[in-house]
């Protein structure tokens, strides 16, 4: 009830803030929405955010499956070591990335230059790299948790029937892990869509993400700053909800596949 109240309250508050006629000039309740949706910078931020989110989630998901396949036969201490990035805040990983590969960082000092610009690059490669480092172990642990002894038995049976390693991975391991992976990937994508700290630290100034665009709106000298911010953030929320719908559909398909 507390969670529902706070969550629904937050959404209702954001909707109310986005509609608030903050200007006495009679700009109307939808002025903030109109301004945001017609802003080219916002359009670029939407495209950039979706590209970064889809790429980071897809790469982390594929790497997580491979990592989980390697970790399945490893000792608990190796698994615990792999889980280290999961406990480290995103901001710390972004800070370490800047210290190592940023301008004047260790790599530049040691080799004279950095082969690929990751800090502040317009493609968002730095943001993607931070999310991949942070989320791959998280998704791998989810996959490992989903692979119980039933999967071991199925794999043994498949091996007895002559299935090779890749074939077992494709037809036994991936279907068994798919529901957990779909749910985990949905959470990762939702977080990536709305997070601000990593894009602020390692991302480009332009284009920003939708969330950084929204927070930067508060710096706009105008009475509609709050409505801009709320409207932009509601667009991210809507994207996350659409994503959740897709994730839930994928989860159902994967769940059915795993049961059959």
């Amino acid at each position, binding site marked *: 009830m*507390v*969670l529902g109240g*706070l*969550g629904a*309250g*937050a*959404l209702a*508050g*954001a*909707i109310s*803030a986005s509609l608030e006629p903050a200007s006495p000039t009679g700009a109307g309740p939808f002025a903030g929405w109109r301004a945001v949706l017609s802003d080219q910078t916002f359009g670029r931020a939407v495209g950039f955010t979706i590209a970064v989110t889809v790429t980071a989630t897809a790469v982390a998901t594929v790497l997580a499956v491979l990592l989980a396949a390697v970790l399945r*036969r*490893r000792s*608990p201490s*190796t*698994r615990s070591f792999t*889980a280290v*990035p*999961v*406990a*480290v*805040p995103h*901001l*710390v990983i972004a*800070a*370490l990335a800047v*210290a*190592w590969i940023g301008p004047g960082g*260790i790599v*530049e*000092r040691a080799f004279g230059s950095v082969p690929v610009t990751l800090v502040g690059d317009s493609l968002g490669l730095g943001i993607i790299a931070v999310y991949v480092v942070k*989320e791959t172990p*998280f998704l791998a*642990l989810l996959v490992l*948790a989903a692979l*119980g*002894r039933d999967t071991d038995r199925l794999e043994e049976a498949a091996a007895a029937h002559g299935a090779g390693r890749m074939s077992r991975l494709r037809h036994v391991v991936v279907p068994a892990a798919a529901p957990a992976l779909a749910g*985990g990937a949905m*959470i*990762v994508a*939702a*977080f990536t869509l*709305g*997070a*601000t*700290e990593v894009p*602020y*630290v390692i991302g480009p100034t332009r284009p920003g993400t939708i*969330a950084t665009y*929204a*927070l930067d709106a508060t710096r706009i000298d105008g009475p509609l700053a*709050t409505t801009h*911010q*709320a409207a932009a953030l*509601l667009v*991210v*929320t809507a994207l*996350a*909800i659409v994503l*959740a719908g897709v994730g839930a559909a994928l989860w159902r398909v994967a769940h059915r596949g795993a049961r059959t």
Partner: protein
Amino acid sequence: MNARRKNLLTAGAVLVTVIAPLAMLVVQAFADQWHAPAILPQAYGTRGLHAVLDDPNLAAGITNSFFVALAATAVALVLGWPVARLVSATRHRAFGVGLLVIPLLIPQAAIGTGLSTWFLRLHLAGSLTGLTAAHLVQVLPYVTVALLTGFTPQLAQNEEAADSLGATALERFGHVTLPAMVPTAALAAALGFIVSWSQYGTSLVVGSGTPMLPLTMVPYLRHDPQIAAVLTLFFIVPPALAGALALRGTRQADRDVDPEAFRAPSPAGAHRAPNGPGCNPFPPPNQDCHDRTRREAAITP
């Protein structure tokens, strides 16, 4: 691959991914003078440490973040416990988990913007109470889902056994439920602390200028690497300690498992931490127990 090569590979991975980045942070934190292109600092000192401790804004950021994270975690454990218990007892567990994680879909800054409109009217904007309440929106789902992994069918059987032997509700909780849930609760608490400690967007909007560690840290990352490194070290220590303590508690509980407690549930064996159904309490070295992996997996992205 032989054991020697495996050990070398593991040591190399630890060196590259954990020790080297942390060593770099420590060096940078005490590098009073470090001009490019020198690989090592020209002068060492404690300028960064003094700058952080002597600046009331930075010091307040650390203490505020710590107390808000502690409060949010404590409240989330109290509120999440009965919810986790309820969801674990339903037939539609996946649906319950799905409902619980819905707030995680709302971006932190959107939560902050939405709640600020109410908090301004309630005079909570910028207060530590308001920040704790705002953090709860994301802390509570994680803590509840983590607690959910502890309410196993085995625990329910042990509780029924205690009931049938005449234990009161308080005795059942003190002798069966609580000891069995300690490792999961420890991990849930660590998780809740880390989620709250790392909140950026929510704190930025709801805080109305109240210093919080992630907020005070970001401006220094590009402008003063030494102060940024000191703040990063402060930022990384509590989650590392929380994670290590939680994992240690989990390991200890797994080591303490009595196989008799799984064959014939009884109050005598019920005080042991239960694992999941069909889970070998004494797994071979290369096969971990599924339930421990589940607890370890219940960590924030």
